[in-house]
């Protein structure tokens, strides 16, 4: 890892040089709704710098909401399919939070485990993550409850932390090094410093080790009914979530030609597990909400050794029924 600093004037030059390098740069942009979204930008002055969290995560860079798997067309006596992985562009994600970087780390483990996913792998390979540590948090933030913190560098290629009038720059990976290469003169070499007093201090809601332990026996807890009562099955939590990876596969086109796509799906949808016979193994919202939370805090731990929640709080901010994931978890792990 290399440690550097860059002053706040040079940071915009660095950003604009990234754009000029020909890479697609995705950064937080304030929309008319007052919400912040990751969007492709052309210049530093388009981006929002004062925000706690974007409404949606940047996961769509590596796991698009709708992604073409291949196109197909009929030939005289068969079909021909074509993959278009080579068209995937080099992308820089700027300004994601440490929790989001950690989510990329989780997704990499999930998608590359056992049956590696070529689509994810290609996109991830061509993505550089430049995270900015959190100086502020809100009541939905709970990264410190899931083993992360507002300055954690897990998953980031470069991590910036605003310290007074300069950014403290941790260049963590080879990709990070290559991203600053052409802008090297803007940076000053530095020694390791403590970021702590510049970081937000979100409240810790629970001990993750204790929750992991208690989740072992949580399946039959009667509290699931109460905790999922408000859930309308809209799936907004899963779409906003930086670690939700479930998807559907659909065809778009005719029997002659078209494309096969995958698109985000959500375990909260009533059709998600429904059999063709009409039988549904997860027949109600309670079973579906339980699946969501157990997947994050139990099944992921058992399957790949990590919790699949990074405490970003998006599901809490977006839920139309005001369901709160950490309150749900606390309540279903009570004896």
């Amino acid at each position, binding site marked *: 890892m290399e440690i550097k600093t860059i002053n706040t004037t040079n940071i915009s030059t660095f950003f604009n040089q990234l754009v000029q390098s020909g890479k697609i740069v995705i950064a937080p942009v304030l929309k008319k709704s007052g919400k912040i979204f990751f969007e492709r930008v052309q210049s530093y002055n388009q981006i929002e710098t004062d925000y706690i969290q974007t409404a949606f995560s940047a996961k769509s860079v590596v796991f698009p909401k709708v992604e073409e798997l291949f196109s197909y067309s*009929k030939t005289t006596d068969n079909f021909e399919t074509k993959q278009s992985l080579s068209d995937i562009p080099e992308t820089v994600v700027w300004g994601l939070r440490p929790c989001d970087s950690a989510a990329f780390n989780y997704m990499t483990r999930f998608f590359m485990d056992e049956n590696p996913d070529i689509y994810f792998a290609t996109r991830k390979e061509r993505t550089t993550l430049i995270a900015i540590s959190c100086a502020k948090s809100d009541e939905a933030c709970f990264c410190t409850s899931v083993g992360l913190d507002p300055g954690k560098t897990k998953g980031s290629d470069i991590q910036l932390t605003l310290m007074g009038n300069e950014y403290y720059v941790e260049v963590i990976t080879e990709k990070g090094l290559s991203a600053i290469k052409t802008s090297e003169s803007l940076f000053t070499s530095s020694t390791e410093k403590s970021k702590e007093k510049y970081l937000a201090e979100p409240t810790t809601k629970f001990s993750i080790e204790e929750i992991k332990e208690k989740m072992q026996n949580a399946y039959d807890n009667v509290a699931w009914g109460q905790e999922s009562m408000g859930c309308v099955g809209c799936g907004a939590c899963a779409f906003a979530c930086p670690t939700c990876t479930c998807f559907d596969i659909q065809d778009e086109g005719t029997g*002659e030609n078209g494309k096969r796509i995958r698109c985000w*799906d959500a375990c909260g949808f009533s059709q998600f597990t429904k059999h063709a016979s009409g*039988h549904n193994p997860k027949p109600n919202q309670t079973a579906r909400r339980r699946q969501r939370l157990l997947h994050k805090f139990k099944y992921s731990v058992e399957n790949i050794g990590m919790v699949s929640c990074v405490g970003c709080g998006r599901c809490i901010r977006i839920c139309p029924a005001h369901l709160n994931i950490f309150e749900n978890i606390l309540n279903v792990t009570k004896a």
Partner: protein
Amino acid sequence: MRVAKITEEAPLIQTYRLEFVDKKEADEFSFKAGQFAEYGIFGEGECTFCIASAPTREGYIECTFRNTGRVTKALADCEENDIITLRGPFGNSFPIEQWYGKNVVFVTGGIALPPLRCVINTLLDQREKFGEISVYYGAKTVNDLTYKAELDDWANRGDMKLFITVDPGGETPEWKRYIGFVPTILEQNPPESDNAIAIIAGPPILIKLGMPILSKSGFPNNRIFTTLENRMKCGVGKCGHCMVGKTYVCKDGPVFTYEEILKMPVEY
């Protein structure tokens, strides 16, 4: 895959014999009894069925399905020589080599005979390696039984015990076999569990009712097998649809023992 032959089995149920269009793909393809595949029609999508033919019968594969949704409707509209897609094989398989010398009991209902027909025919193709083979099979009505001709063939072989039943009210005046739900017939005619393996497949309700009956008849839980078939999309443990607790039916299954099933939540 080319649809080489279509057999009408029962109302809305058909068997397709599929042959590879590409010889190289045909040579590279192999599967084990119990594995499934994704069958698709471009423009409509894919659906999941176990391969219903036996791996011992080479050169083609067969699937049997009910016309019940968008993709199966499109599949059902195919004619012989039409082209459909196949992805697979996926999942684990039945450990048939471990059953040599043992009696094997099959319990199944309705459209769940196809996945077991693959296993049954695999056993019949090496009949001398196994002890007694019994099949408990039921459908709603006589007309709903699949593989009617094959059931007669099996009955005529003389080396299998068949308990073919239809649900009460589903019989015809000529019906001479059993009448009653499969679990009832199984309880009334319990199979000998010594040195025996039981395999149960069915609508989820049959699995849920049948497994405890087999267990009570003396089969140890690790010698009772089933094959689950949850909704699936990807087939490789990513899309999340088929999860039963932490288990992905598509990559960890579809074949499970009762011992394994008991450790899983009842989400099938």
